[in-house]
């Protein structure tokens, strides 16, 4: 079997998302394995650890729930290694989790036969990841090979590039919005790194607003449960075509907007009642938190998405989504700009909003919202698409990248591309 053939059969994708880690070899086909991006530092003296004969320091993947102990222990021992897609340079516990997750992923699929000489690993990281993250990840791959050859060669690509690849679009603008942040990256065969704009908000910001709305509706006790708030946001949140008109419509037709959300497996039913018009606030906030209506929530103590600097990247807090897209595209050459507007790909969990048919014309989808916002700012000919299976598109892009890039294309730091040979 030639080197190229071997590589194609042993491409392995690893998508390090802030909340989920997606992984698997090309042989998995359409859907990767998914586990939460977290690790639990085991108390070796605990009964569970002794019963299970655990010698590891960190447990990751599907085994984690079996080791959980009290809530106090949880806060101390459970480590979520990434914040806004970034692992702090000196956070040793976070890097231990990343290492263990990587090993967990590769060992789960490494064949035992003698012909196996290691995977061609393609890792997807946030476009704003600093160089040390690349270095550390290569170091992790190299370190694992000391025990058993798991990685023959590795490469790391920015997540927006992977999305563009999975969507078969060589020239486009990718807007990747996850739980904690949003990255806007123009792409023309290569990611245009100096045009990237990052926002310090994602799905988590809409959760914060949902929490406030739940408190106002009398569900203050439930508003503390993060997973419940997220579920309510997904079921109740609506994106308005125009916020003021949508609120007027909702107040005039309260029964059309009002729904009851039953929490699966419990007796809890959530009904916003007269406050049902606030459903439109949740969607609007994800796209335009600067609308004056949100000032009253900030005044009451809801955290305002702030501008922050992480590594070399500035994350804007309050910039609206269309403004951010325009700012990113306007950093590119004028000749290229129309092509970048002509294909805007929305990817990530923060774009999965539904628009019920009974509210047609009032509630819209994420792609329609962005298009309208762009028109309001003078951009007429844009095409905005929400990618299918947004959760898996980075992993799929990693697989295509590994499949196509030749084995002899060596890694070079100045272009941040190619294969780093490890075995």
């Amino acid at each position, binding site marked *: 079997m030639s080197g190229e053939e071997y590589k194609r059969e042993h491409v392995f994708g690893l998508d390090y998302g802030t909340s989920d880690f997606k992984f698997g070899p090309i042989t998995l086909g359409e859907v990767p394995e998914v586990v939460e991006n977290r690790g639990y530092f085991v108390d070796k003296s605990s009964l569970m650890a002794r019963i299970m004969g655990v010698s590891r320091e960190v447990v990751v993947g599907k085994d984690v729930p079996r080791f959980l102990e009290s809530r106090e222990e949880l806060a101390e021992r459970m480590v979520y290694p990434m914040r806004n897609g970034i692992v702090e340079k000196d956070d040793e516990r976070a890097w231990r989790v990343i290492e263990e997750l990587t090993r967990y992923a590769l060992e789960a699929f490494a064949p035992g036969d003698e012909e196996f000489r290691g995977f061609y690993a393609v890792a997807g990281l946030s476009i704003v990841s600093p160089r040390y993250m690349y270095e550390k990840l290569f170091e992790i791959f190299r370190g694992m090979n000391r025990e058993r050859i798991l990685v023959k060669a590795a490469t790391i690509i920015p997540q927006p590039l992977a999305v563009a*690849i999975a969507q078969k679009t060589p020239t486009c603008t990718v807007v990747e919005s996850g739980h904690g942040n949003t990255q806007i990256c123009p792409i023309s065969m290569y990611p245009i790194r100096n045009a990237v704009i990052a926002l310090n908000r994602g799905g988590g910001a809409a959760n914060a607003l949902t929490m406030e709305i739940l408190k106002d509706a009398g569900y203050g006790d439930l508003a503390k449960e993060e997973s419940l708030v997220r579920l309510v946001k997904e079921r109740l949140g609506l994106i308005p075509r125009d916020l003021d008109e949508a609120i007027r419509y909702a107040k005039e037709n309260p029964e059309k907007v009002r729904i009851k959300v039953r929490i699966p497996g419990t007796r809890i039913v959530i009904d916003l009642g007269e406050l049902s018009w606030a459903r439109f606030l949740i969607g609007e906030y994800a796209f335009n938190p600067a609308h004056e209506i949100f000032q009253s929530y900030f005044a009451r103590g809801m955290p305002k998405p702030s501008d922050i600097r992480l590594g070399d990247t500035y994350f804007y807090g309050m910039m609206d989504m269309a403004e951010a897209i325009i700012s990113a595209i306007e950093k590119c050459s004028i000749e290229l700009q129309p092509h970048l507007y002509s294909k805007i790909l929305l990817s990530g969990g923060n774009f999965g909003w539904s628009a019920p048919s009974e509210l047609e014309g009032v509630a819209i989808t994420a792609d329609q919202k962005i298009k309208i916002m762009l028109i309001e700012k003078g951009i007429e000919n844009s095409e905005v698409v929400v990618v299918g299976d947004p959760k898996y598109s980075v992993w799929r892009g990693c697989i295509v990248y590994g499949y*196509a890039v030749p084995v002899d294309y060596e890694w070079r730091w100045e272009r941040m591309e190619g294969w780093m040979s490890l075995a």
Partner: protein
Amino acid sequence: MRRRISPEDAVSALYEEEGFYEVERGGDPESLYISRVILSDGKRELVVSVLDEDSFTSRGAIQDILLHAERLKAKFDGVCIAVPRKYAKAFDEGVMAFHGFGLVIYDNIGAEEVIPPRIREKRTGCEEKREVERVARVESQEVVKLRGELSRLLRVLEEVEARLDRLEREQRSLISRLSRAEAELAELKMGPARTRTYEEKPVEVKAETPKSSGNLPSYLKDNPWIDILSRRE
């Protein structure tokens, strides 16, 4: 099914956490009842005499293990006795600690150190300090020397790289000049009537299409990126 761990495995795992690695295990040739595990951390050797449940059916087992342990003190830096958890009470902890023996108890789940063994220090503190100072002195001199060498090599490497770049540029320019000259010469030889126009076609690098595209996932089929990425060089 999970394999039931042996007492020796449990003892070994316990001391591995403290930086010891297993050197040897097996039956003790000088005893009737026990097996032993010898561990080392690179400087000190620890022996653990393991008594299994069956041995306790014999009246002499405990006397044998204690007398034997006393003999082992002369050979090893630390001596431990490992017994099943349910027989732990047969040993008085105070007496064991007084004589410097460690006591380990084990069961199906793992092993636990009840009394740590008294470890004999081979060298005096003074000797060790002198040795450390000597090694540090030699190493720091070497590091300084190596650093100097390394920076010299890096400078040389940079120079070589710069020269190589220059040579490559000149080579490319020479090749293009040569091919232009050859084309002009050929044109002159053929005469104006026979001059032909050469249509320059871009070199086509065809992306290898997957052999069995039927089995490929949807995102790989007809993906223009495969062609783009396979041209990366």
